[in-house]
């Protein structure tokens, strides 16, 4: 089967400098590692004024406080300046301006654009129109590559390696863009995947075909209580009621995908629980006190990873 179904390098140039980051597939394995190593450097020494005199535009056509603050903190710690808007009601987009025109205007004021937009493919389009590089901070349900890079960073930091790990993905594997991107990235590191989801929200076939074409192992389960002890990483996602065609099916299965403290009893010592946040109820509050709960630290890592991405795209590192 043609792996191109899901895997499409659309943005290949030998340098990261001046190259937009729209999709996780825009970067190679070597480039993932370069970002992670740089992020490690920033974690040790987060305040480096290397962005002096640079302007970064943060264009949030839909609000996402968590992602925006993480980017703005990264820019500020590097000594750069920020302009932009936090939601489209404060931009000219509400007056009916096209994305094309907004980007054309903004790229004459900024050295780099960080953009979040509700429409899928908007970031790729912006990167074509813009004369400065664009970082995709989420385009609808499509891509959110900086989230994936911070997931990789968290995995490597807690496991000491990215190679040969057992990755459990739990919950909504059909619509969850974070698990799809993480799958693509981890497929470069000989991971074994365990997909745990209700029937209606299973991992799409195109991703399973892709893993087969890569010669990687994956297993599918509806419940994870019996296998949880084999996990190195448990990546939890939200199971939303609206995703079910049958509300009774939702009621019947909803508790299956909630992680509770007692389930971790015999799990591996190195095992860590990740979640892209915000969570609703899929991780019970009693898990928070476990040393295996890593989701809050995971979010903090986002700043270092974004410092690494911004400084390498601007050619400052």
């Amino acid at each position, binding site marked *: 089967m*043609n792996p*191109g*179904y899901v895997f*499409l390098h*659309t943005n290949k140039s030998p340098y990261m400098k001046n190259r937009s980051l729209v*999709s996780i597939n825009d970067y190679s394995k070597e480039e993932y590692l370069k970002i992670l190593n740089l992020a490690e450097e920033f974690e040790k020494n987060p305040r480096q004024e290397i962005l002096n005199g640079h302007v970064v535009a943060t264009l949030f056509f839909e609000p996402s406080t968590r992602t925006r603050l993480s980017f703005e903190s990264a820019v500020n710690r590097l000594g750069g300046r920020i302009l932009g808007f936090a939601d489209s009601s404060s931009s000219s987009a509400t007056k009916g301006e*096209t*994305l*094309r025109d907004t980007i054309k205007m903004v790229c004459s004021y900024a050295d780099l654009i960080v953009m979040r*937009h*509700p*429409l*899928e*493919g*908007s970031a*790729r*389009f912006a990167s074509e129109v813009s004369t400065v590089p664009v970082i995709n901070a989420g*385009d*609808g*349900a*499509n*891509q959110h590559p900086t989230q994936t890079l911070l997931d990789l960073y968290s995995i490597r930091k807690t496991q000491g390696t990215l190679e040969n790990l057992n990755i459990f993905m739990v919950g909504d594997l059909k619509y969850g863009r974070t698990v799809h991107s993480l799958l693509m990235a981890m497929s470069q590191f000989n991971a074994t995947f365990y997909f745990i989801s209700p029937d209606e929200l299973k991992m799409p076939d*195109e991703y399973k075909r892709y893993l087969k074409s890569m010669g990687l192992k994956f297993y599918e389960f509806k419940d994870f209580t019996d296998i949880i002890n084999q996990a190195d990483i448990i990546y939890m996602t939200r199971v939303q009621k609206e995703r079910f065609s049958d509300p009774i099916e939702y009621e019947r299965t909803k508790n299956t995908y909630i992680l509770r403290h007692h389930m971790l009893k015999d799990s591996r010592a190195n095992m860590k629980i990740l979640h892209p946040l915000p969570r609703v109820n899929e991780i019970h509050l009693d898990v928070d006190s476990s040393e295996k709960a890593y989701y809050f630290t995971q979010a903090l890592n986002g700043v270092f990873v974004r410092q690494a991405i911004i400084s390498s795209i601007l050619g400052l590192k």
Partner: protein
Amino acid sequence: MKDIKHLVVSAIKDGTVIDHIPAKDLFKVISILGLDRIENQVTFGSNLDSKKLGKKAIIKISGLFFRNEDINKIALVAPEAKLNIIKDYNVIEKKVVEVPDNITGIAKCVNPKCITNNEEIVTKFSVVDKKKVILKCYYCEKITDQDNMRII
């Protein structure tokens, strides 16, 4: 049947005959190739019997020869189409349509939340399966297949 074909083909002196078009897609082919906007003589026959396609259509265009990249655009609707290049009433060359690696314009992305369906942007696809003609949107990365393909 053979007689009809013979008649249609030999009726032009110089030009191109496009054969084996699925009858239902005749007008899509005309529109993709812009045959509704040219000055050349264009004639066509539709609902002709075909063993392969059931009902097929034929178009002949006088005095017009296509570049491969132009003719390959019809691969989305008529992948089985065959071309006869006519010079002085004789078939001097036969060509088949090849599905290209990339498609620009022509088709619409199936995803209503795709930027190309919300702003004036020329669509771009990579062809991920040439046999079944399955397209992947360059922008939103979603799959558009034959069942939900819409020609612009």
